[in-house]
Structure formats: C-alpha cells, structure tokens
C-alpha cells in the first residue's frame, strides 16, 4: 500500500477534528474523500501533508510511519498537495511560480523536463509565462497551482477543492485534467464539493462526517448508496 492512515486523531485546541480516521490509498488509484463543510476533509489532507500534527495514529508511506514529520520532509517523499484556495505567489511570474515548485531536492535535476510537461498540459500557462501570477483568471491560477505542485515530481497529489469558486466550464476542464494525470499513473487523493463527479472518478471513496469515516467503498458503490444519494447528491 502506498499510503495508509491508521486511527488518526487530530485536535484543533479542544475541538476534535479527526476521530479514529483510517484509510488506504493504493498506488496509481484515485481516492475521493466526501463530506460536508467542516467534516474534516481539509484537516485530513493537511495532517498527511505534515502541516498539522496528529495526537494519535499512524501515517504509513510505503510502510514507514511519517506521522508528525514536518511538511518539507513530507514533500521530499513525493507527497504533494494542491491546497484549497489557489495559493499562488501573486507578484511572481508564472514561470517563477513553476520554478519555485521545482526546487525540491527530488525534482531539481528534472526541472526542464517537468516544465515542458506542465506547459504542454496547460498551454494557457505557456502563453502567460512572463505574466505576474496575480493577473491570471481563477481557472488559470488553479492550473498554475496544480502545475507548480507537479514541478515537485510528486507520486501522490492531494487536491483540496480544486474546483472551488471556478466557472462551470472551467470545473469540467479541471476534472478532466485530474483524470488525465491519474491515467498517466499519478496517485490522486481528491477532496471535491462536486460529489457526483468525484465519485465517478474515484476507484475508492470515503465519507467523512464530524471527523469520522462513516462510509467507504468503491466510487460506484457509494454512488449507488442511498445515504450518499440523499445527503450529498440531493436525490
């Protein structure tokens, strides 16, 4: 197993954000995490990424426990994240944003190849290479955030609400991009408000409620589940 989370507990002060969360991510698969606002999806991603320190539990990366590792060490393992809210560097150019993502030790030598790959994946970024990232449209900024993450040569990418605040046409493009990346062999953990689409994309999915995993199965199983259909799909 590529990534295995075992009975993870996380607290923000007194409030428990994650309660005995366990999940598994197989290499080259897409795992969706579904849940309402405040269910703990972002907390889970940020804990795996090393930004929050869990109170208990293990995070196994290819069998090695990395719970509590600082985020810069986690990134060097090949665990990337596209954080919520398009955190690009606004006054740096598109090119500088991408280069910054390629400065990890694991990726520095391959930065030319990766740059070509990212620019081929997002031709719009190639057109705007010398433009300040803050001047891009919302969709382009999200592409830049994804591209910058890919520059770090990750083997697993955790996407946190990649379609948040984007125009519907762009949302489709975004999800197609993630599907393309997955088909090329990237392992994906996807947190997405667009539940129907993310379940269709997912090999395996988990439903989080109040910091607890309440349901898990293949994407198709959850799509057919009455509770999911009622609570998240409005059917």
């Amino acid at each position, binding site marked *: 197993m590529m990534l295995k989370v075992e009975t993870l507990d996380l607290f923000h002060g007194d409030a428990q954000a994650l309660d005995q969360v366990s999940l598994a991510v197989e290499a080259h698969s897409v795992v969706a995490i579904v849940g309402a606002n405040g269910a703990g999806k972002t907390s889970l991603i940020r804990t795996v*990424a090393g930004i929050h320190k869990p109170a208990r539990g293990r995070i196994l990366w290819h069998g090695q426990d990395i719970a509590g590792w600082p985020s810069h060490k986690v*990134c060097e393992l090949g665990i*990337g994240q596209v954080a919520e809210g398009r*955190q690009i560097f606004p006054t740096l150019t598109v090119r500088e944003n991408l*280069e910054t993502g390629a*400065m990890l030790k694991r990726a520095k030598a391959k930065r030319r190849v990766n740059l070509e790959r990212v620019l081929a994946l997002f031709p719009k970024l190639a057109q705007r290479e010398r433009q300040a990232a803050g001047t891009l449209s919302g969709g382009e900024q999200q592409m830049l955030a994804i591209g910058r993450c890919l520059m770090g040569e990750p083997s697993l990418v955790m996407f946190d609400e990649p379609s948040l605040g984007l125009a519907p046409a762009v949302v489709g493009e975004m999800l197609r991009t993630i599907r393309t990346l997955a088909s090329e062999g990237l392992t994906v953990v996807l947190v997405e408000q667009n539940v129907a689409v993310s379940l269709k994309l997912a090999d395996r999915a988990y439903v989080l409620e109040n910091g607890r995993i309440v349901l898990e199965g293949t994407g198709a199983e959850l799509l057919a589940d009455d509770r999911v259909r009622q609570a998240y799909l409005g059917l």
Partner: protein
Amino acid sequence: MSVFAALNGRARWLLALFVASLALAPVAADRYILSVLILIFYFAYLGQAWNIMMGFAGQLSLGHSLYVGLGAYVAAALWTKFGVGPWAGMFAGMAVAMAFGAAIGWLGFRFGIAGVYFALLTIAFAEFTRIAFDHMDWTGRAGGLFLPVRAEQAHQWWNLRGGPLLFYYLALALMLGALWLCAALRAARIGHYWLAVREDEAAARALGIDVFAVKMKAVLISSAMASVGGTFYAFYYNNLFPAQIFDMSRSIEMILAPIVGGLGTLIGPILGAFILTPLGEGLIAATEEAGLSAPGTKAVFYGLALMAIVWVAPSGVWPWLRRKLGLETP
C-alpha cells in the same frame, strides 16, 4: 557569470559600462566627489544587505544599525586593543552580528512575531545594544572609540590604512560583490524560497518549504553582510560613537535606497543610493554655502524623497526605469 545569464544583451552592456566608468572615475574625480561616491557605494551595499531581509524574504527589519554597529565596534576594538588586523576583525564582527541576528530571528520566527511586531523586536535589540555600548568602559562608553590615524601615505591595505583611493575601490568592491552575491542567491533555491515565503507563507509551507529555516538564513546572511559594512565604516571614519552608529535613524537611512530604487530588485539598492546620496550631500553643501545649514536637513529631504516615491512609483524607480530601457533583469 551564470548568475547574470538572465540579463539580456543590452543589460549586460550597460552593466559593463557602469562598472568600467566607476573603476576609472578616480582619474577624473576630486576628493570630494570620491568621498560622495564612497558614501553611495556604502549605502548601496548596506541596502543590498537589508534588501535580502525585506525585499526577498519579506521580513521588515528596522534595526539593521545593530549589525553595522557590531561589525564596526568588534573590528575596531580588536584592532585598537589587541592589534588584530581588520580582515580578521571583520570575520569576528560577522560572527557577533550573526549571533545577534540568530537570536532576533529565532525569537521572531519561532514564536510567530511577524510584521510590525518583528520590526519592533529589531528596533528593541538595536536600542538595547546602543545603551549597553553607551556604558561599556572598554569601548570608551558614549565618548567614543577612536582608531589611531596614520599618514595616508602608509598604504597598508592589509590594515585598511591608506588614502581615499583605497577606500574608494574597497567600497566599490563591496557594492559589486554584494550585487553578485544577491544575484546568485536570488537564482538559487534559497532565493526562490525567500520570495515564496514573502508572497504567501502558508502556500510556501504546502510546497515543502521549511519556512523557519529559510527566514533564519535570510537574517543570518543579511546581518553578516551588514556587519562587513560596519567594519568598513570604522576604518574609513576612524571614530565610533554608540549614539551615532546604533541610532535608529541609521537603520532608516539604510533602508531608503532599496525602497526608492525598488524593493526586492537587484539594481534597486544601487540605483536608490545613486539618487538619494548625491542629492542629500548636495543639499547639505548648498545649505552650508547659503549659510542656512540646520541639523536635520538631510532627514527632511529623505522624508520628502520617500513621499515622492510612494506617490509617483510605489514599486520603486528601477522597475519603472527597467521598462523604459527595455531591459530584462530580476
């Protein structure tokens, strides 16, 4: 010269022309002009050091006079008390300044003291140190520390004893050395990480950047550079007073050139020093000539210059000039 690979052809020619004319300037310039140029180089150098903290890493320091003062006092004291030469003294001053920088950085960055609060911390350290030196018998308290002045003809460059030419080329080397160093840092991993931290710390962390370590490197490199400027200052002026060298107005003076020239740019600190220093010195000369000289004239001028720049070109003169000249430089 790979660090200047980002420059286009025209920018390289202009840079070469600039360096060559400064190298040859002493042929034509008199002592007064040379002394003004030395001052320009000195402020360009210190501006470059401060620019690493604020322009690159986004950490506002208003207490850089601390590092300059420590570099000055340590080297001067070692020279006058123990006969240790200034080149060795420079490294000792660097070590002391870096220790202070590490303490400030650790306190600020470990405990999340950011923005203006971090700036206050830097001011506090500079002020405490000034007061300490005011009462330290060993370095002459508030009465000052004086370096023995020898004949200019001595020409002992290894002891930094000599005439204006020695200090002219030394200051020029400092300014150009700092430009090279900053260009190299800017192009390296650390330069990218500084800018990322300046732009968005949370995003930088998500990208695998050790934010604390990156900021610590900024304060260490910047304090070391500033202290070297202090050693130069001590041996150039031959006298040191705590109230002068550690004063907050010194810290402010130091940050004007990069702000006016263009924060976070490589040429900004140099351009800013070339604009501000001659105007400030010229103003003093003019008011003295007219019999109107009053203390604080320069401070008023600097204040006005700062207001003008914030009004006309808030990102500094260099980004504007660069566009006009059609240059591409970082």
